[in-house]
């Protein structure tokens, strides 16, 4: 061992030399390093598959459920109408978990015309959502005081809005059913013939309903009132635009509302359509004012008995009864073509 070794131990030198050598060799290889990149798999937006091969179809109201069931049947589709039976589907607000389930559906059928406002505030799968009244933009009815509520210091006030109950006009119902059929054919192209045949059967039934309606409403000339803005499409067939009172069936009518009605009628008689039975006192007072009450079921929810067509026929019977009572009003209103 020489003098330098004693003063400067060799192991320090060798450690430094080893590190330098190792670093230099890695320099030769680092430029060839392939950086790892994780790129997402390019998946096209497809509906998740359900365990059952039948597509899951979600609807927002009973008429669409009826149309989809008539056309798709229990053999070809799985039907889901998530709104509870004891709630008006138009005002039902699903939870986030319920919306997540709806997002996984193969097809979501919306009514459109602002029906079921939760759909305007929810994240729905655009590619699998069909608005059944989308081609009816010209026919949709907007009324200036569709929504009445109270908030802030200004108190009760109204907003313009669309009337949503498009299915009450059998012709519009046929068009919505046609859209449902097209949507199902898109999902089940192998069963197109069967779906079309079923649609034709439904179309026949709805057209028969329209003819029966024409015989009644087409023959009745009377002033029409509506407790809520729900029956416009039913009456628009005959160019009738009912006046909306915004009365609640289960509440007592205020004197200011009676005064407003009296000034509106100016002694003329009228028929007031309700979507649920009014209080007896209200009905009695209306008769005194020369106003007949008729209750029509808008069929937005699944009926306890029967089906959509039987509910509509029930409405026809109620209208027929009114027609009979108003038999002394001659003349008729031509049905809209």
């Amino acid at each position, binding site marked *: 061992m020489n003098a330098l070794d004693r003063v*400067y131990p060799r192991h320090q030198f060798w450690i430094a030399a080893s590190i330098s050598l190792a670093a230099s060799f890695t320099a030769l290889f680092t430029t060839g390093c392939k*950086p790892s990149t994780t790129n*997402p798999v*390019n998946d096209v937006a497809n509906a998740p598959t359900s365990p059952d091969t039948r597509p899951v179809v979600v609807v927002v109201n009973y008429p669409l459920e009826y149309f989809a069931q008539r056309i798709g049947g229990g053999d070809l589709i799985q039907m889901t109408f998530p709104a509870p039976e004891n709630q008006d589907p138009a005002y039902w*607000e699903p939870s986030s978990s319920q919306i997540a389930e709806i997002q996984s559906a193969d097809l979501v059928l919306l009514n459109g015309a602002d029906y079921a406002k939760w759909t*305007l505030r929810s994240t729905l799968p655009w590619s699998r959502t069909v608005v059944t009244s989308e081609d009816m933009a010209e026919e949709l009815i907007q009324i200036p005081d569709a929504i009445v509520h109270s908030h*802030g210091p200004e108190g009760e006030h109204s907003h313009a809005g669309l009337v949503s109950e498009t299915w009450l006009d059998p012709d519009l119902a046929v068009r919505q059913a046609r859209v449902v059929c097209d949507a199902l054919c898109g999902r089940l192209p192998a069963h197109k013939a069967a779906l079309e045949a079923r649609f034709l059967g439904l179309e026949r039934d709805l057209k028969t309903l329209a003819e029966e309606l024409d015989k009644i409403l087409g023959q009745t000339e009377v002033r029409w009132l509506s407790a809520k803005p729900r029956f416009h499409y039913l009456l628009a067939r005959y160019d009738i635009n009912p006046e909306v009172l915004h009365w609640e069936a289960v509440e007592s009518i205020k004197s200011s509302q009676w005064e407003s009605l009296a000034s509106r009628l100016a002694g003329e008689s009228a028929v007031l359509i309700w979507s649920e039975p009014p209080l007896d006192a209200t009905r009695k007072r209306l008769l005194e004012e020369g106003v007949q009450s008729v209750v029509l079921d808008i069929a937005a929810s699944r009926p306890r008995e029967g089906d959509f067509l039987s509910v509509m026929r029930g409405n026809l019977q109620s209208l027929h009864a009114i027609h009979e009572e108003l038999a002394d009003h001659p003349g008729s209103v031509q049905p809209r073509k």
Partner: protein
Amino acid sequence: MSDVLYLAWRYLAYHRFKAGLLVAAIALVLYLPIGLNLLLQRGSRQLTARAASTDLIVGAKGSGLELVLRSLYFQSDVPADLPFSAVRRVASSGFADAIPIHAKYRAGQHPIVGTSIEYFSFRALRPSSGRLPAQLGDCVLGARAAGRTEARVGGQVMSSPESVFDITGVYPLEMNVVGILEPTGTPDDDAVFVDVKTAWVIAGLGHGHEEPAAGEGGSVQASPALKNYTEINDENRSTFHFHGEQDKFPITSIIAVPRDDRSAALLEGRFLDPADSLQIVRPDEVLADLLGTVLTIRRYVMIGIGLLAIATLALMVLVFLLSMQIRRQEIETLANIGGSASRIRAVLLAEIIGVLMAGAAVATLATLATVWIAGPAERLLIAFG
């Protein structure tokens, strides 16, 4: 041999400042071309991968590059809006699915991307915790955005006002974090995803009904309880509504996912009319132009670096030669104490090799660091675009 290396090591250690300068110069000369190539390679690879995975983008007429960069990377200037009716136009063609993109606003440094649920399956984005957006006000954070904001599922994230000087502008929106996505190594990691309708609320197109405290005589009392931001919660969500026709509401672009190549071509044909206010672009073609420009500039930069390297090497040779002149006495001493000429030459050579290897080592470390931080490489290229 060990004595040669030892002496070389001791010399360099003694003249550490000079050695350090030489090591730094060599490291720079070696690292610059490697690092630049690496950055451009990784950046262009990531850019082109994301563009290649997106067939078509529809947007307002204007800069195609701006449209692509905003739609894919949520950066660059915001292109002109297009109406939401364009989504129906694409979807109703039957040739492609349409995914709307609204990428105008930010939550701090993170872009707020309003889109549809299909975007998540298109980009294979899955939540690592929580769920995807379901309701107005819900937001889902990319992995990096969640890390930086320290937001958790159940927490809130606030949108940024467009201009701090806009006192008449829309209030920021406090969004509810319902999910955090798995990391993907893409710009999606930096984004805050909402439903496009939530983006419209931020834009002021929708609102709910807040109840400020009523003062005497029907006046409104602006108390400290009056919030200067909008929030959407379970209590007030049902009051939110939009004014105007949704078809006219603005979006930034549409990602069109064609069914096949033929459908893509047919869809492109629908936008050929020069009078059409919309355009359809292929992102990979648009970015190829950008990368072509970048690669051209790289060529010139590499030439410059090459010339610099030659000059640096020449200077280093000069430094070594001058050093040997200065060390003449030292070399004579080595010879006098018994060092042979070959041994002395070996010591000098070992010093040179040592400096070179140390420079290479530093260049290696710098390259490794570049690999680690190469994520911003994309942003550099986008900023260049």
